[in-house]
């Protein structure tokens, strides 16, 4: 009986430990999750909604968080999947317009700012035309806080595959942009 009680006590201690501090998680990862979601959605409001959804999911599964090996990768994966799912319901083209205009408007004359915004928009359009795997790797690499191993775990691929996809994505994007410039 004593051993049973001791076992159950150990069990309760482990379950108490499994209840992570959500406030700490929000402080540590909300910025990263926002950038991950923003790379897919290119909208601040939509990306914030995704971050909130991620932490609501964490709250719902807080008792099983003890089994999560890498909290950072796990959260990024949830945010990535939620953002990709939300992307199907929003019009990204309008958000790309605003994002491109915001990139080009830093201290330039109006005509040059307009031209540069058009180029940014062209880059975003060509990124969207990339194959899905290449586009995903390129967007995750743009966040610049995830290593190859972490990107591989988020996307469910091997590290070598992620490297190859990233190389192909950059090459293809450059070629297409050059072709587009040549046509003009």
């Amino acid at each position: 009986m004593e051993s049973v009680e001791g076992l159950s006590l150990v069990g309760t201690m482990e379950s108490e430990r499994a209840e992570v501090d959500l406030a700490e998680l929000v402080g540590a990862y909300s910025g990263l999750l926002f950038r991950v979601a923003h790379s897919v959605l290119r909208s601040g409001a939509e990306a914030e909604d995704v971050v909130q959804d991620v932490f609501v999911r964490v709250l719902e599964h807080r008792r099983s968080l003890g089994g999560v090996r890498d909290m950072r990768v796990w959260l990024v994966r949830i945010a990535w999947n939620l953002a990709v799912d939300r992307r199907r319901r929003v019009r990204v083209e309008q958000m790309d317009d605003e994002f491109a205009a915001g990139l080009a408007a830093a201290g330039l004359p109006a005509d040059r700012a307009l031209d540069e915004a058009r180029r940014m928009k062209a880059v975003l359009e060509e990124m969207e035309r990339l194959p899905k795997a290449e586009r995903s790797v390129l967007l995750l690499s743009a966040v610049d806080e995830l290593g190859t191993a972490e990107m591989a775990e988020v996307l469910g691929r091997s590290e070598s595959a992620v490297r190859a996809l990233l190389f192909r994505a950059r090459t293809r994007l450059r070629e297409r942009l050059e072709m587009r410039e040549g046509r003009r």
Partner: protein
Amino acid sequence: MMRPDDAMEKVLAGLRDVEAPAGMERRVLELLEGAAEVQGKGSWRPLWTMTAARPGLRMALVSGAAVLAAVALAIPMMHWLGGTARVSGRAPVANLNAKGIDGAVRGNGGVAVDGPRRVAERVSGAGGARIVSAGAGAEEAGGVSDMDSVAMSEMKAASFPAPPMPLTEQERLLLRMVHRGDQVELAMLDPKAEALQDAEDKAEFQRFFAKAPVKDPAAEVAPAQDAPEQAAPSGDQVSPGEAPAEEPKREESTMKQGVPQVKTVESQ
């Protein structure tokens, strides 16, 4: 002029350097607080995790479960024993006499007014028959005393016949045909009657056409011979040799036109 590489790097840098809106963390935490409150109200923890550190609570739960199990076993047993005892000493519901019904339904509006009574009613779907059992009257009738016995009696009562099934399409067609009363169609239903009808038709046909040739020569020869004689005084230029030539035409017309024509010839 910006090169494609530069534009690409600038876009990727823009995606990297984007900053979360101000107050996002606070909003997320507020949302989580609200969600945690909602979950706390509706959430429950398994009993074995709650009782793990409290042996007293565990013993109380085990003993409570044992009592519940005993009660759950005892109730059906009591019902079974009581039901068999009552059923053995009870008359069937069909024997409820008019005295019991009268005791239940009398006075204003048909409601019993003297003494406490229980009335249980069941209106059957098919015939609209109503079984009424009243406390005192029913006990006089056969010992139906409480709701359990009423339920048992209803269960044991003779079932009422089901309402008739609707007619099929073929049955409706047959019904329509029979009620029209057409003899030929009726005869089609019975091969013997059909054969009889055919035989009657044939006999009538033969009778009709068999009579006509027998009658015609006798009836037509005399008028045919008389006709030229009657026609001559009228002044028509008819030679005696032409009269026989008209007779076959008359016969043909009578054969074609039937009895009324023959009668007209005879009358002429």
